[in-house]
């Protein structure tokens, strides 16, 4: 008896287990099998499992008449790449884009449509490089970010919509965005000329801070590693790697089982951090941006003393560090007073004001500095119970890639002009300063 004799239910089960490629071949055997292989329910399932599509859309997001047609379009549009890698890149973008659409739609709106194979080939021919496979596919999905005039305001002269985000301290603002291929060409030519890289350099500029020309990310097309310029970049082209080297593999080999370059790994890590809440949106003066100061332990410490909560974390600043043991770390301190207030003379009090700070800074485990000073960055914030966090940023140099900061603030209940009790000390729990494995 023929294969069709097992019945429709069983046939559908067999085809489901076969997966799309084999079903495509079974369809060519005979008419009955072709009919079973054409069932929408089957292709709807494949589209859902492989591409997380709940509607039949093509790679541009335009609707197609059937799931079968949609699956076919995706396979055809990406036939020049290993399919598992295409699926992986899609998952990476889905995660990033999903987070942006929910939390930062203004930034999501700046993501451009995918580049075409022709666009990529043009870049390769102009810059005389060969893009690593994962990066090519990343650009096929989204060709960087687009900004228009309205994204640059008085408050955000450089823009704040970079999807990599950044930090700010002492008026120095960093906000990193992904460059579209056209800008990659421009920036790379400009920088290569300026920095005197050889014309056969394998480096292309893929990301940059829009606010300060000092932070540039370079992709090495030959080995697939991503680098960020240090403070010595303008002088001797010094850069540091952004991704653990051991993870990078087979970036130009279509036949390998696993291809991953630094761009893919970097964006995947960034997506994970956004989704887990390790990094979040910051709102400062009405401007929202992605902030790279960690928000969760172990990188962010929390302590509550007498109702005052202090959360603290640091971020490594590569563009002001170098590879000769000069490491700059910026840190963010967030302070707030819990709704119950603080105690003063055994009475609850709804206000308290910062008076002094004391830091102990360590490099490795040895104390390298004590800092004592009034207020914090010249301010004496007044906290009221249940109110918004007061946040400030500062920085410190270290001669080692690893260290820590801890300390204490002195607060007065009420206000300094009208104290309700005596000064009390509030702990700043130790938080790490460390050169991260992924540098953003």
């Amino acid at each position, binding site marked *: *008896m*023929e*294969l069709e*004799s*097992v*019945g429709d*239910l*069983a046939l559908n*089960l*067999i085809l489901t*287990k*076969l997966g*799309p*490629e*084999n*079903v*495509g*071949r*079974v*369809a*060519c*055997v*005979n*008419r*009955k099998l*072709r009919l079973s292989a054409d069932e929408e329910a089957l292709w709807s399932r494949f589209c859902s499992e492989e591409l997380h599509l709940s509607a039949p859309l093509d790679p541009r997001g335009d609707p197609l008449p059937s799931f079968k047609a949609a699956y*076919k379009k995706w*396979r*055809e549009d990406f*036939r020049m790449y290993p399919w598992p890698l295409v699926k992986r890149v899609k998952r990476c973008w889905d995660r990033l884009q999903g987070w942006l659409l929910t939390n930062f739609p203004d930034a999501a709106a700046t993501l451009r449509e995918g580049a075409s194979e022709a666009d990529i080939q043009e870049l390769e021919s102009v810059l005389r490089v060969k893009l690593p496979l994962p990066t090519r596919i990343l650009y096929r999905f989204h060709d960087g970010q687009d900004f228009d005039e309205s994204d640059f305001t008085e408050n955000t002269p450089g823009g704040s919509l970079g999807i990599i985000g950044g930090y700010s301290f002492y008026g120095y603002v960093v906000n990193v965005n992904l460059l579209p291929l056209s800008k990659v060409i421009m920036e790379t030519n400009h920088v290569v000329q300026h920095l005197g890289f050889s014309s056969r350099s394998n480096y292309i500029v893929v990301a940059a801070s829009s606010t300060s020309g000092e932070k540039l990310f370079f992709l090495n097309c030959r080995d697939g590693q991503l680098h960020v310029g240090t403070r010595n970049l303008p002088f001797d082209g010094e850069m540091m790697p952004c991704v653990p080297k051991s993870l990078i593999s087979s970036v130009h080999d279509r036949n390998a089982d696993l291809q991953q370059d630094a761009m893919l790994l970097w964006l995947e890590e960034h997506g994970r951090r956004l989704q887990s809440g390790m990094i979040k949106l910051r709102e400062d003066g009405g401007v929202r941006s992605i902030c790279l100061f960690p928000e969760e332990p172990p990188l962010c410490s929390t302590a509550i003393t007498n109702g005052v909560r202090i959360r603290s974390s640091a971020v490594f600043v590569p563009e002001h560090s170098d590879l000769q043991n000069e490491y700059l770390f910026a840190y963010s301190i967030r302070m707030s007073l819990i709704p119950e207030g603080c105690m003063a003379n055994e009475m609850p009090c709804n206000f308290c004001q910062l008076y002094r700070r004391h830091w102990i800074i360590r490099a490795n485990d040895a104390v390298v500095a004590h800092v004592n000073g009034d207020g914090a960055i010249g301010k004496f914030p007044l906290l009221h119970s249940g109110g918004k966090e007061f946040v400030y940023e500062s920085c410190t140099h270290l001669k080692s890639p690893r260290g820590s900061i801890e300390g204490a603030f002195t607060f007065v209940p009420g206000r300094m002009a009208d104290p309700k009790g005596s000064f009390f000390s509030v702990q700043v729990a130790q938080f790490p300063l460390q050169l991260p494995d992924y540098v953003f």
Partner: protein
Amino acid sequence: MSSPPSASASSSPPPCPKKMITLRSSDGATFEIEETAALQSKTLENMIHENCASTLIPVPNITGEVLARVVEFCSKHAEAGVDDESLGAWDEEFVAVDHTTLFDYIRAANFLEIPTLLDLGCQTVADMIKGKTPDEIKKTFKITTACTPEEEEEVRGENQWAFE
């Protein structure tokens, strides 16, 4: 007749008789199956719960040869204390049959609603198809009804991506 156990020794309770169901194949052969094993089949389970299973159950679509094997499958899968690895090996041997017999098992599993057997059978067929070209699939299953050359070319063109 065996002597009764001595009063001082610990004695296990006398074994209770297992409830048996009788099935009759399309060609009139009868087979006994333990109720616990029969519960593998949703069809039989429903009948048991509605007390229709007290007498003989006719299974008109399945021949004696196939029904015997299905009973064997259900009994094995209802056995206590069989580890996953040995069961897997037993299953592998069970489906090491020609494709016609395999289709018989699948049809029986479908009719009697035995999800484990259906899944096993379909997975085996899928494994036989994986990686083969349309011609190889035809040969493996001795499929004679084919498309016309024009039809075949049309479908091939539609599914070109599956061949790259």
